[in-house]
């Protein structure tokens, strides 16, 4: 038995144990501490599955955005689980159903066809036409560009949905996701030291995304985390939903993507097709604009709407 397989077994057991804890914990807060740990462990799982791009996404989302979102919500929602949890009958039925689904999935996993079907050769064969070296970036922005375009629109819709939940009398007010607590000097120091480094790392992750693991979403999420950190330290105020500057940044990326997609009709005769001569630069331009928009969208989604003044 090799060291690698022992490592994999340890990791799988640990992930499953943390998942059981997250589901079984009685109080909400321990469950969320478990869930944040689960996200960080999944980043290692992705590295073991040779999906470094996904590992970067999971680390940025699981370690930063989701944790801040859920911890903030857990502190504010004051209700606790009631005296009587779900009935024993329901639990047994749910348990049986879930066991059946797990067993079916396990059966599928163990009987997957061999050799496995793959699109990797086709993805690599098309790389020269796109000018980028990372096949995942090529899939995201070129081969399946329509998915990525719609995904950004889903993010925008979520932002609109979150803003729609502002109470009428608070429309235009500043969101105050962390109350108006006094500045904590340790957090201020962290923000002052970390934010500039984090911005550089975020831009770096986007830049290398053209040829190595990385990309707009991973880098944008890190930028969003830095924006959140500076706001958490109280160094800058959150922007209100009515801010025109914020709205411009939010739509800049999707709008540019859409414009290039339509320009494809004129330049090379089809929606979302890049003329080969400029493909690399168009993709980089779209990625740069998307990064800024993603940073703004993730930030707004975590901050949430303005709440009613009491």
């Amino acid at each position, binding site marked *: 038995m090799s060291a690698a397989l022992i490592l994999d077994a340890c990791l*799988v057991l640990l992930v499953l144990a943390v998942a059981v804890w997250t589901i079984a914990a009685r109080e909400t807060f321990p469950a969320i501490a478990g*869930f944040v740990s*689960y996200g960080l462990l999944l980043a290692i799982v992705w590295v073991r599955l040779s999906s470094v791009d996904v590992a970067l996404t999971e680390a940025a989302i699981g370690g930063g955005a989701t944790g801040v*979102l859920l911890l903030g919500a857990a502190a504010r929602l004051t209700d606790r689980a009631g005296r009587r949890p779900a009935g024993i009958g329901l639990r047994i039925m*749910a348990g049986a159903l879930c066991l059946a689904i797990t067993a079916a999935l396990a059966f599928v996993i*163990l009987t997957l066809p061999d050799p496995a079907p793959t699109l990797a*050769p086709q993805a690599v064969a098309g790389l020269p036409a796109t000018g980028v070296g990372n096949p995942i970036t090529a899939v995201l922005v070129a081969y399946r560009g329509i998915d990525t375009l719609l995904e950004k629109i889903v*993010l925008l819709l979520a932002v609109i949905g979150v803003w729609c939940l502002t109470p009428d009398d608070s429309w235009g007010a500043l969101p105050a996701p962390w109350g108006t607590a006094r500045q904590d000097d340790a957090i201020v120091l962290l923000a002052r030291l970390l934010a500039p480094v984090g911005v550089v790392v975020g831009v770096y992750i986007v830049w290398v995304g053209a040829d190595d693991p990385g990309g707009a979403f991973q880098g944008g999420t890190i930028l969003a985390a830095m924006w959140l950190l500076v706001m958490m330290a109280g160094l800058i105020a959150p922007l209100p939903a009515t801010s025109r500057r914020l709205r411009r940044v939010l739509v800049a990326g999707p709008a540019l993507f859409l414009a290039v997609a339509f320009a494809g009709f004129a330049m090379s005769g089809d929606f979302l097709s890049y003329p080969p001569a400029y493909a690399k630069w168009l993709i980089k331009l779209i990625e740069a604009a998307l990064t800024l928009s993603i940073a703004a969208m993730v930030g707004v*989604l975590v901050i949430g709407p303005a709440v009613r003044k009491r």
Partner: protein
Amino acid sequence: MTAEQLYGLCGAGLVGLGLFGLITAELPLRRIVAFNLLGGGAFVVFGVIARRGAAAGLGGDPVPQALIITGVVVGFAATALAVTLVRRLHEETGTTKFDQDELPPETVKLSDATLSGGNP
């Protein structure tokens, strides 16, 4: 057993656990957490399929890997929207439980709440 099968079984277990939590959890926030756990398991199963497709010098099939990234992004957007909904519900009614019988009498009932948030 190969490492891929190990992770695949792990993903299958996570899907089952997440679904169990989604059905049995009492508080909406816990259901959101369970739903994300389920999503993570589904992504791992899909990631195993990507890993098995390793060819042409790549560590895995890039198409499912890119789809997983899209899935993570959409999952995050849905989570943020759900958390905001639950927070707003709590702001209006002081609770996030849907079971009206369990509410203490002085709590505003959902039906009476001014969910529109309009001025009186």
